[in-house]
C-alpha cells in the first residue's frame, strides 16, 4: 500500500504546478492591467498565502521514510510501461533529495525567490510552478526503475530548471540560462541516443548491471557524455559556475544539492558497475575526475561571488566522486564498497551544499547586521563549510572515510596523494567562501522564521549524518585531519596577508571569470556565427531571386494571354496545302502498308 507513495512522490508536485502558478484563466480581460494581467494584487495575496513550493516535497520524504527497500509499484499502462521501485541507492537518494527540496521549498515559499527588485514577488507564481516541475522530475527519475521514467524525469527537470536559472531576468541570468539550456539539451540528446542503444543491446527497459555487459563503446560514451554535462565533468562544466550564481538562492541550492547528483545515479544504473571491468573507460573516467577536481579548486579560489565559489566546489566534489566511479569501473570487485561510498558522499555533499547555498541567502537577508540571527547563521555556515571540507568530526570526514578503501585499492598509488592535495584545496576554498560570506553586507527583510528553521533542520542533519553511518569507529572521525589542518593553516596565513597587505592577493581575485573555458571559447563561436549568418543571408538573397523569377514566369503564363497566332494558318492557301499534303502522306502510307514486301 505504501508503494503508492512512490507515485505520489512525483505526481503530487505535478498536481500542485497549476494552482501554484497562480495563473487565472477566467477574468475580465477588458480591464486586465497590462503589467501582469494574470495576477491581480489581492488574488496574488491569496495565492501567496499557501506555501506551494514547500508542500511539494512532503510525499517524497514520506516515501523515503515509509516505503521499505524493495518496494515496487508496476504501472504497465503508464507512459511506455512504468515500473516504480525503491532500492537502497534510490532510497538514500530520495531521502537527501527530498530534504534539500523541502528546505529549499520552505525558503522559496516564505523567503525571497529573486525576481526584479521593483516587484520581487511578481513572478513568484511562475517560479513556484517551475520549481515544482523540476522537483517532480527529480523525484520521478529517482523512484522510476525503468529508464523511461529516468529519462522523462531527467528531461522534465532539466528543461524546467532553465526557468529557475533565468528567473530574475537580468542579462547575466539570461546568458547563464542560454548556456545552461544549450548544454542541457546536448546532454539530453546524447543520453537519449545512449539509452536507445542500451535498450537495443540489453533488450530491456529495466536493466540490471548483468544485462549491461554487452554495452558497446558508443553507448557508454554517449551515456558518460550525456550525463557528464549534468555532473559538471570538465570540460562539460561550463554552465555550472554561471547558472548557480544567476539562479535565485533556493534554485541554486537544489541545482547543486540534488540535480547534479542525478548524473551519478544514472551512471550507477546504466553502466555495468560491478559486473564487468571496463579498464579503458575506467581509467579515462578517473583521469577526467581528477582533472575536474584539480582544475575547479584553483579557479574557485579566485572568485568573488560566494555562490560561484560554491559552484566550483561542487564541481570539485563531483570530480572526486567521478574518480571513485572510474576506479570502480576498473576493478568491479570494489563495487559494493565504492557504490555505497559514492552514494553516501553524494548524500552528505547534497545536504551540506544545499545548506551552504541557503545559508548565503540567509546571510544576505535574514536579520540585520550584527544581529543574533546573523551571528548564528555565520556560525552554522562555518560548520557547514568545515563539513564540506571534511574536517574531523564532521559528516564530511565520515563520508570521505567510506571512499578511502577504493582510493587505496587503486593501482595508481599516486591517486591518494592527489586526493589529499585536493582536500587541502577544498579546505582553502571553504575558507575563502567563509571569508567572502562574512564580508557580505546583510540587509534585513521581514518574516524569515520559517526559512531559518528549515535551514537549521538541514544543518542539524548534516551534523547528525556521521552517526548514521559510522558511530563508534574512531578512525572515521579523524579522516584527513591532516590535509584539512594544512588547508586551514594556509587559509589563516592567507587571511593574515590579506588583512595586512591586501595588494598582494588582490590581483589574483577575479583573475579567471566564472565559466572559465567559456570565456576562451565564446569569441570563436561568435566569429563562427557571424560568418554563418552572412553566408546564410547571401544564400537567402540568391534563393529569393530565383524564387521571384520562377513566380514571375508562372504569373506570366497564367496572366495576360497572347494575341491570335493562327491568322497565318487560316490563310486558305496555307490550310489547303496542309490539307492536300496530309492527304498525300496518308495515301502513301496506306499504299506502302500493302506494297509488296511490306506485309
Amino acid at each position: 500500500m505504501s508503494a503508492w507513495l512512490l507515485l505520489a512522490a512525483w505526481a503530487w508536485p505535478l498536481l500542485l504546478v497549476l494552482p501554484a502558478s497562480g495563473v487565472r484563466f477566467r477574468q475580465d480581460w477588458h480591464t486586465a492591467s497590462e503589467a501582469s494581467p494574470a495576477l491581480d494584487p489581492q488574488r496574488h495575496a491569496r495565492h501567496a498565502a499557501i506555501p506551494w513550493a514547500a508542500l511539494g516535497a512532503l510525499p517524497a520524504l514520506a516515501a523515503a521514510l515509509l516505503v521499505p527497500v524493495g518496494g515496487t509499484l508496476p504501472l504497465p499502462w503508464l507512459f511506455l510501461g512504468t515500473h516504480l521501485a525503491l532500492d537502497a541507492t534510490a532510497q538514500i537518494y530520495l531521502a537527501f533529495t527530498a530534504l534539500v527540496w523541502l528546505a529549499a521549498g520552505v525558503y522559496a515559499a516564505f523567503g525571497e525567490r529573486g525576481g526584479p527588485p521593483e516587484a520581487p514577488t511578481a513572478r513568484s507564481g511562475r517560479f513556484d510552478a517551475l520549481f515544482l516541475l523540476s522537483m517532480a522530475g527529480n523525484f520521478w527519475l529517482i523512484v522510476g526503475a525503468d529508464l523511461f521514467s529516468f529519462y522523462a524525469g531527467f528531461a522534465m527537470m532539466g528543461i524546467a530548471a532553465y526557468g529557475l536559472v533565468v528567473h530574475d531576468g537580468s542579462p547575466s541570468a539570461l546568458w547563464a540560462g542560454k548556456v545552461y539550456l544549450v548544454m542541457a539539451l546536448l546532454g539530453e540528446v546524447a543520453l537519449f541516443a545512449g539509452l536507445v542503444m542500451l535498450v537495443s543491446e540489453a533488450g530491456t527497459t529495466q536493466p540490471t548491471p548483468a544485462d549491461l555487459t554487452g554495452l558497446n563503446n558508443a553507448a557508454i560514451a554517449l551515456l558518460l557524455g550525456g550525463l557528464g554535462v549534468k555532473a559538471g565533468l570538465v570540460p562539460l562544466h561550463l554552465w555550472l559556475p554561471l547558472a548557480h550564481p544567476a539562479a535565485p538562492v533556493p534554485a541554486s541550492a537544489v541545482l547543486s544539492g540534488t540535480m547534479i547528483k542525478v548524473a551519478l545515479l544514472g551512471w550507477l544504473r546504466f553502466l555495468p558497475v560491478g559486473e564487468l571491468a571496463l579498464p579503458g573507460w575506467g581509467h579515462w573516467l578517473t583521469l577526467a575526475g581528477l582533472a575536474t577536481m584539480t582544475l575547479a579548486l584553483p579557479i574557485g579560489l579566485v572568485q568573488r561571488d560566494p555562490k560561484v565559489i560554491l559552484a566550483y566546489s561542487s564541481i570539485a566534489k563531483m570530480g572526486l566522486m567521478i574518480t571513485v566511479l572510474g576506479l570502480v569501473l576498473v576493478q568491479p570487485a570494489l563495487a559494493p564498497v565504492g557504490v555505497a561510498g559514492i552514494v553516501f558522499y553524494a548524500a552528505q555533499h547534497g545536504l551540506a551544499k544545499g545548506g551552504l547555498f541557503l545559508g548565503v541567502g540567509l546571510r544576505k537577508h535574514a536579520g540585520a547586521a550584527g544581529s543574533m540571527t546573523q551571528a548564528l547563521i555565520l556560525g552554522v555556515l562555518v560548520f557547514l563549510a568545515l563539513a564540506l571540507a571534511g574536517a574531523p568530526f564532521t559528516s564530511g570526514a565520515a563520508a570521505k572515510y567510506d571512499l578511502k578503501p577504493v582510493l587505496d585499492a587503486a593501482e595508481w598509488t599516486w591517486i591518494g596523494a592527489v586526493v589529499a592535495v585536493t582536500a587541502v584545496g577544498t579546505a582553502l576554498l571553504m575558507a575563502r567562501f567563509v571569508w567572502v560570506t562574512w564580508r557580505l553586507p546583510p540587509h534585513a527583510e521581514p518574516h524569515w522564521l520559517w526559512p531559518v528553521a528549515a535551514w537549521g533542520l538541514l544543518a542539524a542533519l548534516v551534523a547528525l549524518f556521521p552517526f548514521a553511518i559510522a558511530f563508534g569507529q574512531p578512525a572515521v572521525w579523524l579522516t584527513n585531519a591532516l590535509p584539512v589542518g594544512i588547508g586551514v593553516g594556509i587559509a589563516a596565513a592567507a587571511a593574515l596577508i590579506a588583512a595586512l597587505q591586501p595588494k598582494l592577493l588582490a590581483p589574483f581575485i577575479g583573475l579567471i571569470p566564472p565559466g572559465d573555458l567559456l570565456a576562451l571559447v565564446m569569441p570563436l563561436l561568435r566569429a563562427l556565427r557571424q560568418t554563418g549568418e552572412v553566408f546564410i543571408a547571401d544564400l537567402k538573397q540568391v534563393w529569393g531571386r530565383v524564387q521571384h523569377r520562377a513566380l514571375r514566369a508562372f504569373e506570366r503564363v497564367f496572366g495576360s494571354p497572347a494575341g491570335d497566332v493562327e491568322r497565318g494558318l487560316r490563310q486558305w492557301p496555307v490550310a489547303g496545302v496542309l490539307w492536300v499534303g496530309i492527304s498525300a502522306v496518308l495515301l502513301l502510307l496506306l499504299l506502302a502498308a500493302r506494297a509488296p514486301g511490306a506485309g
Partner: protein
Amino acid sequence: MSDPLMTAPLVLCIALPLLGALLVTALPRWSVSLGIVSALATAGAAVALTAAVWQQGTLHLILGGWDATLAIALHADGLAAALILMVNLVGLGISVYATDYFHDRLRVGAFWPLWLLLWAALNGLFLAGDLFNLYVMLELLGIAAAALGALTGNRDAVAANLRYLLVGLLGSISYLLGVALLYTAHGTLDLGLVAQRIAAAPELFAVDAAAMTLMVAGLALKAALFPLHFWLPPAHANAPAPVSAALSALVVKAAFYLILRLWLDLFWPITGMAAAMLLASLGAVAIVWGSWRALRAERLKLLAAYSTVAQIGYLFLFLPLLTATPPGPARDDLLAALLLMALTHGFAKAGFFLAAGLVQTHAGHDRIDDLGGTAQRLPATTFAIAMAGSALIGLPPSGSFIGKWLLMQSAIATGQWWWVVVVTTGSLLASAYVFRVLSRAFGLEPTPVRFVTDARAEVPALTLALVSVAVLGLASGPLWRLLELGSAGGGA
C-alpha cells in the same frame, strides 16, 4: 430484327426533329413551345432506341422494300446507340437552355428550325447505314451548323462561319468523291456490303486506299484535326452559347464518329499502323497545341473552343492503339475508353459552353481576366464550369479519367509509351487553363446569397457537367455491354 415496334425509334429519331423543324417554321409564334416539345419527343425516341439496342442488340432497318444496294438503310449498334443517347440528352439540355437565351423574335424564329434540322442531321448521321445517306446527312449538318453559328449576325461570327461552311463543303465533296470511287470498285453503298467486299477483294486495295484517303481527309477537315482545326476556334467562339455548345460537343464528334466507323468497319483490312500513327501524331500535336492555346486564350469561349481542338486530339490517339491491340477484352476496353472520352467530352463541353454563355450574358463580356465578380456571383454556374473543367482535365471521378486510365494502360501495354507523355502533358495544360478560369471565382466580392440564381439557364449546364463528372465516371459499366452488343451483330 425488323419488328416495327423495336425499329420505330430508328425512324422517329430522325423524323421527329424534322417534323419539329417544319412545325416551328410553319408556326413561328409558337416556336419556343413547339421546339421544346419536339426536343422532348426526340430525346424520348433516342432513349427508346438505346433501350431497344440494350435489349436486343444491333437494330437494322431498310426503308421502302428495295434491296440493300438502292434503299435507305438505318443501322444502330451499341456505339451508335451510346452516341445517340449522349447527343439527344445534350440536345435536350441545350434546348431547355435556349428557351431562355434568345430574346429578339428574329433570332428565336431562326434558331429553332435550324437547331432541329441540325439535330435531325446528327441522329441521321449516327443511324445511316449506307455511305450516301451519310453524305447527305453530313451536308445537312454542315449547312445547318454554319447557319446557326452565324446567328448572332455580327461580323466575326459571319466571317468565321462562312469559312466553316466552305470548309464543310470542301470536306463533303472530297468525301463524296471517295464514295464515288468505292462505288466504282465495289458497286454498292451499304456499309456492311462494302466492308465485306473490301475484305474480299484485296487486289483493289489501291482504289480503296484512294477512296479512304479522300473520305478520311474530308472528314478530318470537318473534325478539326490539327492542323485542319484553323476554322474551329473563331466559329465556335463567336456563335451564340447554345450553338457553340452544339457545335463543339456534338457536330465535331459526328465527323470523328464517321472516321472511326470507316476505319473500323469499312477499311479495317487496308488500314495500317503507319496511317494510324500519322493521324495519332497529328492528334498528339492537337492535344498540346490546343491546350496551350486554350491556356493563352483571352476569352472564355475561345478557351473552350481550343480545348475542343485538344479533346478531339485525344480521340485520334486511340487509332494506333486499336490497331496494335488484337480483338479481345483489351480491345473492348479500348473502344469503351474511346467512347467514354467522347461522351464525357460531349457532356462536359456542352455544360462548359452553356455556363460560359451565362457568364457572358451576366458580365456583358467573356474576358477571363475580368470575370472575377461574375464568377463569384453565380455559384452554380461556376460549379458547372468547375465540374466540366475537371472532366476536361480528366480528373476523377469523371468519365475521361477512366478513359485516360485505360488509354495509358493500353499505351504502356502495347509499348507505345510516348502517348503517356502526351496525355500527361495535355492534362497538365488542361488543368492550367481550367484553373486559370476558376481562380477568378475566389475574389473579395460580396458573398452570393443563394446557390442557384436563374434555374432555367443554370440547371441544364449544371446537370450536363454533373453527368460528365459523376455518372459517366462512376457508372460506365453499361457502355461495355452496349459495345459488345454492337460487335455481336454487324459492326466490326
